[in-house]
């Protein structure tokens, strides 16, 4: 349903150029040095054709065979010089490109990590991931292979034209007859390629996503006997991607066909010019030969330079997507960043709606004194997770305020330690070692502190049993953790992050009933000494909380201690408790 998504912004051409300029400015001397060395290398290389022409002249004028030696020695010297200068020049250009690229990807990731979650979710998880993956790679590959090639080709073209002019200006004029066709071709191609590449990229992304969904859900597809349907989805999306790729190929081949025409026009013109100039005695056969060889040698650099437009366009499409995120304006910094006075949590008259006409929270007010624990209870869809997200600062409430230790969530010092942490039922293990994963929560933690955190949430046993302990590589491509282990890891991160307020949104849900009981103990240990807001669907968690808040359709319908609410006649919580444990009480009584 790509149509419904609200993709993350892409930069305009002007913004992209400004971003590139900003990247290049601090490296301008490197750029100048690189260009100078490469120019020298190319210029030296250009002496080859006239030297060969000279050989031809020596032959036609009947010089002795030994006279050939001098130009040939010059050819050898040129070979070594231009090889060395090219190598050095390319090294400089690589330092330039790679440095700028590193800065760009760091800026991108730094900004991407601070995007509001709501925005990322509206765009679909694939949008940001494909920018961090495919797009960064597309730009990197152009910087790595395209940029040096382009620099060399452009220099070769420019200097060859100059060389033609030195032989005779009319050779250059003849060669330039090819230019209008080439320029037209580039213009013709540029207008068509960019939108096509953008569509192709989207189609390939959709294909990838479909494959992941179908393959990841294979047991489900088998159980429901929906193989045909999913095969149809994969086939359709794959064929879409293939067809768009082929449209791109058709475009590229027509592009090169036009360039062939330009080559023929230019080459014929240079040969005819040579013919006329030799006949009128204005240049030697050697010069005419050199001109023809010059022009023939232009085929490759011209094709490379114009062909790179292909890659450059693809990279441009990727670049605007990267810059679009990297250059997003920073959210306004709190006017006066403040530190919370204590660990209390207040939500005052909070209302929220994700889409204008669908409010999910109405006028919710909750006060949690420091160190206390409040359980949010209610039917699914009552707004519990939304409230948890608002308190954790994931979304901004539509109206009302949320304060921690008397400081509004938006005014908290963003550079200080996180005041509120959120753990959801979503488990994620980062690629890297277990220690690296944990240190995301506290970068300067010692190994002993990491082990202590794992111990506290009851994860030390399996963690130390891992093949290489804390140094075991986990996550994508590494050792696989179970859902319960991954959730304990999340709780250990919470312990290390050590926030004053912890919000837990059904943090035990993914483990199933039996695993949930183990995790409940881990949760209790992780929450010790913190202010806690728990979204609980297991009422045992609610019973242990200092206070229970019952939400229904986005409103607080009851609030009080477990015992108070349980005794409230006709109360919603009392009803819930009976539904959940009534049988249990009866069972026990019996």
């Amino acid at each position: 349903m790509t149509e419904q998504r609200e993709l993350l912004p892409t930069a305009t051409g002007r913004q992209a150029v400004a971003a590139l300029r900003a990247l290049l400015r601090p490296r301008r001397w490197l750029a100048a040095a690189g260009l100078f060395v490469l120019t020298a290398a190319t210029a030296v290389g250009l002496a080859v054709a006239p030297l060969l022409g000279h050989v031809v002249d020596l032959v036609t004028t009947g010089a002795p065979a030994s006279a050939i030696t001098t130009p040939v020695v010059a050819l050898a010297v040129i070979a070594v010089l231009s090889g060395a200068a090219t190598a050095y020049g390319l090294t400089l250009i690589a330092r330039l490109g790679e440095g700028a690229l590193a800065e760009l990807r760091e800026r991108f990731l730094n900004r991407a990590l601070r995007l509001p979650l709501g925005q990322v979710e509206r765009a679909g998880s694939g949008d940001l991931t494909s920018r961090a993956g495919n797009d960064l790679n597309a730009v990197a590959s152009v910087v790595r292979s395209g940029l040096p090639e382009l620099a060399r080709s452009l220099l070769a073209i420019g200097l060859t034209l100059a060389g033609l002019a030195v032989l005779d200006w009319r050779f250059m004029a003849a060669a330039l007859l090819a230019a209008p066709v080439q320029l037209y071709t580039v213009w013709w191609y540029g207008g068509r390629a960019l939108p096509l590449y953008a569509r192709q990229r989207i189609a390939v992304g959709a294909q990838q996503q479909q494959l992941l969904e179908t393959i990841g859900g294979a047991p489900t597809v088998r159980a429901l006997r929906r193989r045909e349907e999913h095969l149809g989805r994969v086939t359709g999306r794959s064929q879409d991607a293939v067809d768009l790729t082929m449209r791109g190929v058709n475009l590229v081949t027509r592009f090169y066909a036009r360039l062939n025409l330009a080559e023929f026009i230019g080459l014929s013109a240079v040969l005819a010019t040579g013919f006329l100039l030799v006949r009128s005695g204005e240049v030697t056969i050697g010069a005419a030969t050199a001109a023809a060889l010059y022009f023939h040698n232009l085929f490759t650099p011209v094709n490379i330079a114009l062909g790179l437009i292909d890659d450059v366009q693809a990279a441009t499409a990727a670049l605007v997507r990267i810059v679009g995120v990297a250059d997003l304006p920073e959210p306004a910094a709190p006017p006066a960043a403040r530190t919370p006075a204590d660990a209390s949590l207040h939500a005052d008259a909070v209302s929220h709606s994700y889409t204008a006409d669908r409010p999910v929270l109405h006028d919710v007010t909750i006060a949690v004194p420091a160190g206390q624990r409040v359980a949010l209870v209610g039917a699914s869809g009552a707004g519990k997770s939304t409230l948890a997200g608002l308190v954790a600062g994931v979304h901004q409430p539509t109206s009302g305020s949320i304060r921690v230790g008397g400081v509004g969530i938006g005014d908290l010092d963003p550079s200080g330690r996180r005041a509120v942490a959120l753990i959801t039922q979503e488990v994620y293990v980062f690629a890297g070692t277990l220690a690296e994963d944990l240190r995301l929560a506290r970068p300067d933690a010692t190994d002993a502190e990491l082990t202590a955190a794992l111990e506290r949430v009851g994860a030390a046993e399996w963690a130390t049993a891992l093949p290489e302990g804390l140094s075991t590589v986990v996550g994508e491509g590494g050792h696989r953790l179970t859902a319960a282990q991954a959730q304990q890891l999340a709780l250990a991160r919470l312990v290390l992050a050590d926030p004053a307020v912890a919000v837990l949104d059904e943090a035990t849900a993914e483990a199933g009933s039996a695993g949930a009981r183990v995790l409940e103990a881990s949760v209790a240990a992780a929450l010790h000494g913190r202010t806690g807001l728990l979204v609980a669907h297991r009422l045992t968690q609610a019973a242990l909380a200092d206070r229970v808040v019952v939400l229904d359709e986005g409103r607080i319908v009851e609030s009080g201690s477990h015992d108070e609410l349980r005794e409230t006649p006709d109360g919603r919580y009392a009803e819930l408790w009976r539904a959940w444990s009534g049988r249990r009480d009866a069972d026990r009584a019996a």
Partner: protein
Amino acid sequence: MPQLTGGRVLREALRGQAGRITGSALLSTGHQAGEAMVPVVIGVVVDRAVGTGSSSQLLLWLGVLGAVFLTLSFSFRFGARLGERAAEQAGHVLRVRLTDRVLDACGGADTGRLPGALASVATSDAGRVGMVALVLPLGVAGILGLAVGAVALLRVSLPLGLLVLLGTPLMMGLAHLLGRPLQRRSEVEQDRIAHTAGLAADMVGGLRVLKGIGAERAAAERYRLSSRAALTATVHAARAKSWHDGTLLAVNGLFLAVVALVGGRLAADGAISIGALIAAVGMAQYLIGPLSMLVWVNGELAQGRGSAVRIAEVLASPAAVGGDAPLTGPITGRLAVRGLTHGGLRDLDLDVTAGQLVGVVTADPAHAEALVDLLGREREPDSGTITLDGHDLSTLDPEAVRAALLVAAHDAELFEGTLRDNVLAPAADGSTVPRQRTAPATLTGQADTAADGPLTAAPAASGTDSLLGAALAASGADEVAATLAGGVDGALAERGRSLSGGQRQRVALARALAADAPVLVLHEPTTAVDAVTELRIVNGVRRLREGRTTVVITTSPALLAAADTVHFVADGALTASGTHEQLVREHTGYRATVLA
């Protein structure tokens, strides 16, 4: 059937595109020959026209040049298209074939493989095997291009021709030898670079988790360090590559000097014409093209072979389950488990009476998983049998078993598409990709209004719609529909990620109920829903499954209390049976498991 090997996968992929590959090879050869002819014709023009001043010769040979260009241009254009189409189509065919294998009723392809790794086989590896269809014609053309060049050169001058033909590969070999240590150094650095490339996507994938604990800064710093290390590595690698390229350039130039020396001396002695000299010099440059192309083709072929092996491994994965007997006649729904041993279950005997709602409690959650896998025919038991109406499941066609006995696993996935398409399989035409359904236009023209409630937004009522309505109501998923813009025709994101865990669980349950299977097995269907909704679900499931066999594998007291019979499995064997009340009263182990 012979063993499926990488070679066979590759051959089949190429055979499927044989026509395109042949056409592409012919046309690419024409292109190469044309490219080779250009310097030769330049030499002829200088020789016969520029040197003699003959206008007619100039026009004649420019005409020939035009014909050469026409040939090379058209053959490139259509040769490249055929080759690319062959590559893309071959990759596509493999992609679909891999998906088909993974989804095969007998399973096995996804056993022990991560979804991400399998998806990468279906994209990268399928694409690389496809690439072979593209590079093969180019390889043929490269060799033929070399041959054409050789013939043209040898006709001009035997010694000069031999020098160029033997010298060019020698020169390239020398450059390769000189550059190899540099290249090797660059490969070592590539690993470090690849690591950073993956890191950005990995961190973005865990964005929610990072934000939850405020680790954005730490993550950015970790990435920065990795990026800086990669920068050092890339600059080293680029330096090595630059000197490699520079060496190639120098060796190439030195070789040209040798050709000029030999050719020039031959021409000065009158052994060859000036045109021959020019052609030889041009050819020395041209031959580098097809030769480096052959090197590249060779590399692609190696990669293609490696990918084909990986694809063959997936395609040839042993089936996880077997059986092909049809299941005939009406299903009464009587299940019997005898001596079942698998994944912690030890010699398990268990009976499920037809038409009952039966609860199964396992003290160890891993045992429940094992039972779910066996009932769903994801695995064969180590020993023992499960029979349905007396038929051993292991002998039956898995497809037929699943039609009669649906297992709704706890970790079942939802799919991108509408809520309706998730619950009911979309229309029989399986070729459609999910698309936006048009909501019915109302008189006011407003297609979706939340106030309409979930079900009124559905298109024309039919038998399936009443089934849908009943399933949604029984599972509590009607409330999910009510929260979606578009109701039952509202869209779910990939894997249902736009819903909360509890919402996903209810939609998955609705889907299982809507399948209307004679026997339904539910594994922990209510772990993520609240107590009130759970009670509603218990009543709904009971009512909807009245008279048909339903097995609920769970430890939830609300579900178990509603069951006609409950079986308690401890230490992998049946320990007690009875009603929930009886077991709670009489069995300590049961009490400890269910009422924690």
